[in-house]
C-alpha cells in the first residue's frame, strides 16, 4: 500500500495496518528529519511531489519487491508539505515469512525512492533555503 500525505506519519499506524498472517518478521523503517545538514542548522523541511507519477512509480517499486523477494505485505508512506525537525518523512514497513527478505526489500525501496521517485526536499536554514540535489 502506498501513502503520500500531508499528515503526520506514525509508525504505529503503518505497523498495525500491515497484514501479518503467517509472518515471522516485521521490519519498520522510519526516516526522520535531522536538525543539521553538513553542520548547518536546519529549521524545517518542505517536500514537494509530482504526486500522480510518484504514486505510479512507488506502485511499480512495490510490484518489483513482491517479484524479487518473498514478502507478505509492504506499506510505503511519504509525507509531503512542511515537515518540522524531528518529524517523520518516510515510513516503510514490511512483513515476511523470513527476516532477510524484509531487510533487503526495505533497503531496495529506500534506494529506489531516493533515486527515481519525483519527490523533492527543500531545506530551510536560518537565513536561506535550498532544494537538495539541485
Amino acid at each position, binding site marked *: 500500500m502506498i501513502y503520500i500525505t500531508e499528515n503526520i506519519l506514525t509508525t504505529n499506524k503503518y505497523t498495525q495496518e500491515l497484514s501479518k498472517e503467517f509472518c515471522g518478521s516485521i521490519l519498520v523503517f522510519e*526516516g526522520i528529519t535531522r536538525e543539521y545538514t553538513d553542520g548547518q542548522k536546519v529549521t524545517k523541511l518542505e*517536500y*514537494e*511531489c*509530482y504526486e*500522480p*507519477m*510518484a504514486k*505510479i512509480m512507488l506502485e511499480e517499486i512495490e510490484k518489483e519487491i513482491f517479484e524479487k523477494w518473498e514478502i507478505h505485505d509492504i506499506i510505503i508512506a*511519504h509525507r509531503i508539505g512542511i515537515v518540522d525537525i524531528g518529524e517523520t*518523512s*518516510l515510513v516503510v514497513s514490511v512483513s515476511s515469512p523470513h527476516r532477510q527478505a524484509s531487510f533487503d526489500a526495505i533497503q531496495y525501496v*529506500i534506494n529506489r*525512492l*531516493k*533515486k*527515481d*521517485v*519525483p*519527490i*523533492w*526536499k*527543500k531545506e530551510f536554514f536560518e537565513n536561506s533555503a*535550498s*532544494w*537538495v*540535489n*539541485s
Partner: protein
Amino acid sequence: MKINILLFANLKEIAQQSSLQLDVPETAIVSDIIDIVKKEIPDIAPHFKSIMIAVNMIYVENSFKLNNNDEVALIPPASGG
C-alpha cells in the same frame, strides 16, 4: 499541437510558475521542447544537464516523439526520503 509542461521544486521557483502550455509542430520530439523551454526561461537552461523528462508520467529519452496534449514533466534530481 498543444503540449503541457510541468515544473517542480527549484525549476518552479526559477520560472515562477508550475506549468506552461506550448504550441508546437506535430513532429515535435522531447529535445525540441527542451530547446523551447531554454529560450523561454533562460534561467532554467543550466539545469537541464541534471533534469530527467517524463511524458505522461513515464521517463523518456530526448528523441521521444510527442503527441497532442502530452504532459511533459521536467524532473529535477529526486531528493525524497
